[in-house]
């Protein structure tokens, strides 16, 4: 069976090479035959990758220990669903999943544009196929998931306990769907340069693909944060860990692109800049894989380290060199007559927004890679971690939040003084009001106060935008408010979808502010019947139990939780000890309310029989997740807009 798997990957490599060669030939000669064959080869790679995945899953589920990958990442006592998800627990399996998603994107792309006869789309498929060459080559010649052990061990090494979590079953595939998806925008950009295409139609198409994978990446990041919150047991959800940063960077640049692309659509400006952003987003998503997989940086998420780092680095260098060379070669294509009415305008605010997004990405990139650079230069090992990013990234992010409010209320072309006055006075007043109200409640410090001001400011501008839209349509609409809002959103999905995304971002910022600045902590050893007070809560230890699970032994502290003297429930904080991995794992007890989370960890059981309990109150943490959901809702609305495209098609002669 393993030979079949190897053969499938080898054939996949062959088909990818064929696809690139064939499409290139077709593009050169204008013959349709080679283009068609190339398209079919892309489909074939998708089928072969799927076949390889099925073979590996079969081995994983059967715990066939003759496979090295299976022996390294599963064990016989591993629950079936985790055996299934251990496909992406290790390096080779993750790369195989990556290839599957990549080839699925290629096929989905060809399916979506199967009726378009324009060879432009074949060129995009060619770019996807050339990335497939890289991945199939890695899987065939460098790190095959189908390596066989000469003497199969009686049992495997087991799955990393950190990955034995329901969140880990969906987080990686969703994150990958985001990461890998940036291949399509990248393909568009390269195809535009290769074929010397002008016009803005591809920009509309690329915007949708970008929105799609950008949304998936965002959801993937949030799921990762949720996983860290529940599984890592340190009371937080975002630690500015290298791998977290790696996923954030393409998301940030992608966000910058989604904004600046509007200027290109409206004004035909910033062509080079937009192409550069697309290329950067793609390279950063590959860089993310490189960071996770290379072991250059230590991280809580780098579960599979190996020697494939140089390959990725080489690929990044090669692809970015080609992209840069193409941009320079097609300079004339990207030239645009840039004209602007005023600096204080929507266009202007987008430009500053782009600066901030790219600066935030740069700060994250520099901070993430600086330990390696500094050690190479000074010879001293240093860390650049959360305390750094909290000081450097937070102010830039807050500036962005402020701009989130300012941008949409500036009119296109030129914002006159009267427009500025009309649009800014109320939001600014609400911002000051919210800040003034927050101070007696205990808010202090520059960043928290700026965040509160900005949150109120942005919320007011969004509400005003909706209210103004409804006001403008009041002659047409007479129904109830919800239906008026629904119709308004229907009318311009991109615009109001965007505002909803901004609203979600504000909610998320409030959650981050609440849970970081106002977090409260208490800890102590508790004997049976003893209580620990934290804020309005009292935790009383009711006992400690020992329990055997399928592949772990579980020590659980049973805690009665009361708030203000009123009993609210019994919670179980556990420490699991996985026999295979020989390491303890925290299983957090969580009492969630909309206003705050009570987060309880069992540190361990002491010699005198007392249990070390650590408890946090994380205010407003639910806002982080709710904010994320609102953003997803907004993305759905913004992405479902076809109006602009249809209109353009109608206008086409």
């Amino acid at each position, binding site marked *: 069976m393993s030979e079949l798997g190897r053969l499938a990957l080898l054939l996949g490599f062959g088909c990818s090479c064929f696809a690139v060669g064939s499409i290139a030939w077709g593009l050169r000669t204008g013959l349709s035959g080679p283009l068609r064959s190339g398209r079919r080869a892309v489909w074939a790679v998708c089928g072969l990758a799927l076949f390889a995945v099925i073979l590996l899953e079969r081995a994983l589920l059967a715990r066939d220990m003759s496979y090295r990958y299976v022996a390294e990442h599963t064990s016989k006592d591993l629950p079936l669903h985790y055996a299934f998800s251990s496909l992406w627990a290790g390096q080779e399996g993750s790369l195989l999943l990556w290839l599957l998603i990549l080839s699925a994107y290629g096929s989905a792309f060809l399916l979506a544009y199967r009726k378009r006869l324009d060879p432009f789309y074949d060129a995009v498929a060619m770019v996807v196929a050339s990335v497939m060459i890289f991945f199939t080559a890695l899987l065939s010649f460098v790190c095959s998931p189908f390596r066989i052990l000469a003497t199969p061990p009686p049992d495997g090494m087991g799955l990393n306990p950190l990955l034995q979590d329901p969140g880990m079953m969906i987080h990686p595939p969703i994150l990958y769907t985001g990461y890998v998806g940036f291949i399509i925008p990248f393909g568009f950009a390269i195809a535009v340069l290769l074929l010397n295409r002008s016009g803005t139609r591809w920009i509309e198409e690329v915007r949708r693909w970008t929105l799609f994978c950008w949304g998936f990446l965002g959801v993937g990041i949030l799921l990762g944060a949720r996983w860290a919150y529940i599984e890592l047991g340190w009371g937080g959800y975002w630690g500015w860990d290298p791998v977290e940063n790696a996923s954030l960077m393409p998301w940030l640049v992608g966000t910058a692109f989604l904004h600046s692309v509007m200027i290109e659509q409206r004004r035909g400006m910033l062509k080079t800049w937009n192409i550069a952003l697309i290329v950067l987003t793609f390279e950063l998503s590959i860089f993310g894989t490189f960071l996770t997989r290379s072991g250059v940086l*230590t991280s809580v998420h780098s579960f599979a380290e190996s020697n494939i780092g140089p390959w990725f680095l080489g690929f990044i260098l090669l692809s970015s060199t080609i992209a840069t060379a193409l941009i320079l070669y097609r300079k004339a294509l990207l030239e645009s007559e840039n004209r602007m009415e005023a600096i204080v305008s929507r266009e202007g605010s987008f430009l500053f927004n782009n*600066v901030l997004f790219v*600066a935030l990405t740069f*700060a994250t990139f520099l901070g993430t890679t600086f330990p390696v650079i500094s050690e190479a230069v000074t010879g001293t090992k240093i860390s650049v971690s959360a*305390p750094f990013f909290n000081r450097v990234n937070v102010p830039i992010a807050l500036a962005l939040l402020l701009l989130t409010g300012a941008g949409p209320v500036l009119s296109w072309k030129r914002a006159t003084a009267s427009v500025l006055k009309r649009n800014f006075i109320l939001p600014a007043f609400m911002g000051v009001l919210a800040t003034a109200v927050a101070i007696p409640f205990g808010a202090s410090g520059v960043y928290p106060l700026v965040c509160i001001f900005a949150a109120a400011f942005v919320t007011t501008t969004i509400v005003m935008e909706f209210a103004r839209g409804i006001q*403008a349509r009041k002659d047409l609409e007479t129904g109830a408010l919800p239906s008026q809002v629904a119709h308004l959103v229907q009318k311009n999905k991109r*615009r109001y979808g965007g505002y909803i995304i901004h609203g979600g971002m504000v909610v998320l910022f409030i959650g981050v502010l609440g849970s970081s600045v106002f*977090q409260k*902590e208490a800890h102590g050893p508790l004997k049976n019947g003893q209580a620990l007070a934290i804020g309005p809560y009292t935790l009383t230890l009711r006992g400690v139990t020992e329990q055997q699970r399928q592949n772990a032994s579980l020590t659980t502290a049973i805690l009665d939780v009361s708030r203000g003297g009123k009993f609210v429930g019994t919670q179980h904080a556990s420490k699991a000890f996985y026999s295979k991995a020989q390491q303890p794992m925290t299983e957090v007890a969580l009492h969630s309310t909309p206003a705050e989370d009570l987060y309880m960890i069992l540190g361990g059981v002491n010699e005198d029989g007392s249990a070390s309990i650590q408890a946090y109150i994380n205010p407003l943490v639910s806002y982080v997740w709710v904010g994320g959901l609102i953003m997803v809702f907004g993305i759905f609305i913004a992405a479902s807009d076809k109006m602009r495209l249809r209109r353009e098609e109608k206008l086409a002669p």
Partner: protein
Amino acid sequence: MSRFVPAVLLFFLIAASAAPSSAKPRDLAHEITSNIICPCSCGEVLSGCTCETGKSMQATVENGVKMGKSKDQIVGALVSQYGEVIRGAPKAEGFNLIVWVAPFAATLAGFAIAFFVLRKWVRRRAALYAAGAPGLEGSEPEARPDGTVPFPTGRSLEGDLDALRRRAEEELGEMRRKR
């Protein structure tokens, strides 16, 4: 408009209700531990670390605070024991100054570039306008009083050329395929 206000107020009320129960400044020990990284393989910020190394370091910090040592003394002692690597953020001196300065320098430089580029574009348009160039973005309508911008009624020359080129290419492609 007034009907939106209750929803927004509710949203902020929940936020505000969460604050007073926990708005209390953290102690010095927490300030220190939240800026130190556990030197063992876990790599977590010390204040949230639950591994054995982390716990003993937390105890060291708490003892130091109880004995009345200053923040610098406690951190200095830990750094001399475990190395610079335990600082969550490098000291802003020497080569490591770069990582502190570069992000803000880049942001400011970016702003400056954006400003000058925008000014150049504004001046270019003004110059063209003064020269009486015809049809200057005339196709793009001004914003309505409600802030929305209607779709362009006319199409630019470039847009027309694009459409023609696209059509020609599509037809050519079709012909090639039929052949």
